[in-house]
């Protein structure tokens, strides 16, 4: 029995004591890999290794030191992994071939398990990191930076996963690709703490990828924002969707998604913050929408529950395309809400009707947008709010919050630090600068008398602000 156990343990001990092959500049990486036994380590010293496609066909570790550059020379794939138990870290990969026929990638892994790609740089490649049919992998701390000068048809996805499961994609940065992160048929996976920006199409794009979670990611300045389709049981929490602007650009587009949880996300300065199209049982909770053209577009074919969301400074808070009655709004905070709270329970005593008649008009005639925020349009909206005639009467928040939840403010505060491409701060529309309570307390400490005068004055101009500010 003991002998049997020993026999079983022996290969494990051998694995632990695997050899390390050091490759220096001028030596051949491919030759070193060919020399490797299973589970050996190749330690790649700094230098440039241009040897066409490097194929890894058995379990091993490829570790770079001092950012060695592996250059494919534009001949096809650069690193092709055809085995399980492979780790690649610390290398810089360049020189894929742009092709209409093959999905050439900087690092392509197919049909393996237990893959780790950590702390690599992928610069100016066609596809960046490509996992196909992989199970249980970790893709973390990679920087996948495409070539900003290249046309769309010569770009591909930064991190591309197809038919995978149990993958963790964490702390990666993807820029200037076609889609930043693309998942198709990827299940039971987590995408967390990634940043995807300046991609031509979508920052994140997934289809048929069930039971995945997306948390603490930032998607900004992507051509069309983030699109997710035909998926069930998705959880998206604490993400930020920023500055996605264009004719069909969305912070987050949900299409045919069932049982999704969208929680604590921030949507700032997008053409459409959140578009919900054909989604069933979506829970949209505690999100913040500021400075978007449309905070939420909620199509009538969806059933969603909106709770604890904060809307502020959007051109339109909510728009829809029919007499929708499947969704419910309850306990959200609307900056346009003008109701009162006599029983001081923090909830407005009259319902809020977030749909604006001008929103309906622009839905039919987009060019009516030229009248945005004109006095006439404001009066129209004001009148509609008092006597609803054109907007569906069913859609209203029955218990609107009197003030935004504090955590909403803090979330927005963090947006402040949102960096542009070169780290320049964004100061234009959307970035909310001070949380409400801070300034109020400052005012209170100044002078009660000044405050009283201010109050009198505000009463005097109440007419103007009421008539003008509601559009």
């Amino acid at each position, binding site marked *: 029995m003991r002998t049997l156990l020993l026999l079983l343990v022996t290969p494990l001990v051998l694995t632990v004591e695997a050899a390390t092959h050091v490759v220096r500049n001028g030596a051949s990486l491919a030759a070193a890999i060919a020399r490797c036994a299973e589970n050996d380590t190749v330690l790649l010293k700094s230098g440039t290794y241009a040897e066409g496609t490097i194929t890894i066909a058995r379990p091993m570790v490829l570790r770079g030191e001092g950012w060695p550059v592996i250059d494919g020379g534009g001949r096809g794939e650069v690193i092709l992994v055809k085995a399980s138990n492979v780790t690649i870290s610390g290398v810089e990969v360049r020189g894929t071939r742009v092709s209409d026929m093959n999905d050439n990638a900087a690092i392509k892994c197919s049909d393996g398990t237990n893959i780790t790609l950590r702390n690599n740089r992928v610069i100016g490649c066609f596809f960046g990191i490509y996992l196909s049919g992989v199970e249980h992998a970790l893709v973390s701390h990679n920087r996948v930076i495409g070539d900003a000068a290249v046309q769309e048809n010569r770009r591909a996805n930064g991190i591309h996963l197809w038919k995978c499961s149990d993958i963790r994609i964490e702390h990666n940065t993807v820029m200037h690709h076609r889609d930043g992160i693309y998942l198709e048929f990827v299940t039971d996976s987590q995408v967390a703490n990634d940043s995807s920006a300046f991609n031509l199409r979508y920052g994140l794009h997934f289809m048929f990828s069930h039971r995945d979670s997306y948390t603490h990611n930032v998607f900004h300045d992507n051509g069309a924002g983030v699109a997710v389709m035909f998926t069930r049981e998705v959880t998206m929490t604490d993400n930020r969707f920023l500055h996605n602007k264009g004719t069909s650009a969305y912070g987050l587009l949900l299409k045919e998604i069932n049982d999704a949880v969208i929680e604590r996300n921030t949507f700032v300065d997008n*053409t459409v913050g959140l578009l919900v199209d054909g989604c069933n049982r979506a829970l949209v909770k505690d999100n913040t929408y500021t400075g*978007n053209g*449309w905070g939420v577009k909620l199509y009538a074919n969806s059933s969603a529950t909106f709770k604890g969301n904060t809307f502020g400074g959007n051109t339109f808070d909510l728009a829809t395309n029919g007499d929708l009655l499947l969704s419910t709004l309850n306990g959200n905070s609307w900056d346009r809400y003008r109701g009162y709270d006599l029983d001081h329970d923090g909830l407005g005593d009259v319902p809020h009707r977030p749909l604006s008649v001008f929103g309906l008009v622009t839905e039919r005639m987009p060019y009516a947008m030229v009248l*945005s*925020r004109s*006095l006439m349009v404001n009066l129209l909206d004001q009148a509609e709010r008092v006597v609803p005639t054109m907007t569906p009467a069913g859609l209203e928040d029955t218990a609107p919050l009197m003030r935004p939840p504090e955590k909403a403010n803090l979330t927005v505060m963090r947006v402040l630090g949102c960096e542009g491409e070169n780290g320049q701060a964004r100061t234009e*529309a959307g970035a909310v600068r*001070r949380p409400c309570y801070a*300034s109020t307390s400052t005012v209170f400490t100044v002078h009660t008398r000044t405050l009283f005068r201010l109050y009198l004055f505000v009463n005097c101009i109440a007419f103007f602000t009421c008539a003008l500010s509601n559009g």
Partner: protein
Amino acid sequence: MWKVCRYTLLDLLRNRSAVGYTVLLLLITTGLFMLEADNTKALITLSQVVLAITPLLTLVFTIIWFYGQYEFTVLLAVQPLRRSAITQAQYVAVTGALLLAFWLGVGLPLLAWAPGATSLTLLAAGSLLTTICCALGLWIAVCQRDRAKAVGIGLAVWVLLVLVWDALLLWLMYSFSDRPIEPLIVPLAALNPIDLARMMVMFRIDLAALLGYTGAVYQDFFGSPGGTLAALSALLAWTLLPLWRAVRGFQRKDL
């Protein structure tokens, strides 16, 4: 002309209504920024208030001021001065005073609280409206003997520009929604100085929404040299035409 202008301006700077106008703007602006924690939202509300009341108050102020100044204007007309020089001097003086009031009342707080492209656009738009409405007010005042009637006409002009024009545009869009009316809308709106000023500001604030849909239309119009030229000449026409009519009207007027 400059001499008359200088002294008229000197008089206007101590004018109680002009000071009141400055204080009102200052109160609105600072009040909004103090009460509204979110500067972007304050800016939106502010631009709506400013774009609505600046033309109104400028029109009414210019008209009332002209009548208050009437006897002195007569005295000036008896001096060896060209009538046209008197009107021009008065226009420059009253515009200068109101512009100063606007910059003090809106510009200073804006630059203090929300410096940036949007604020500068708002200031430019407000200044343009001030120049235009002074010319309009002067024209109305010169051509009307009765002060109450002139103020009435001023109010009517304001309502026309701020409400009726937009209502007509909307009606136009509705009734011709099946025709390719789209390229007409922006130029038609830009013909109205208040609309143009509003679009200038909103183009910055509502960029997210506008880019989504009419972005292209806007860009086509304002982005192209032709469109910019057309908008500028529309603004110039709104200033020069009333001013020219006011000068001619005053030349022919029996005082």
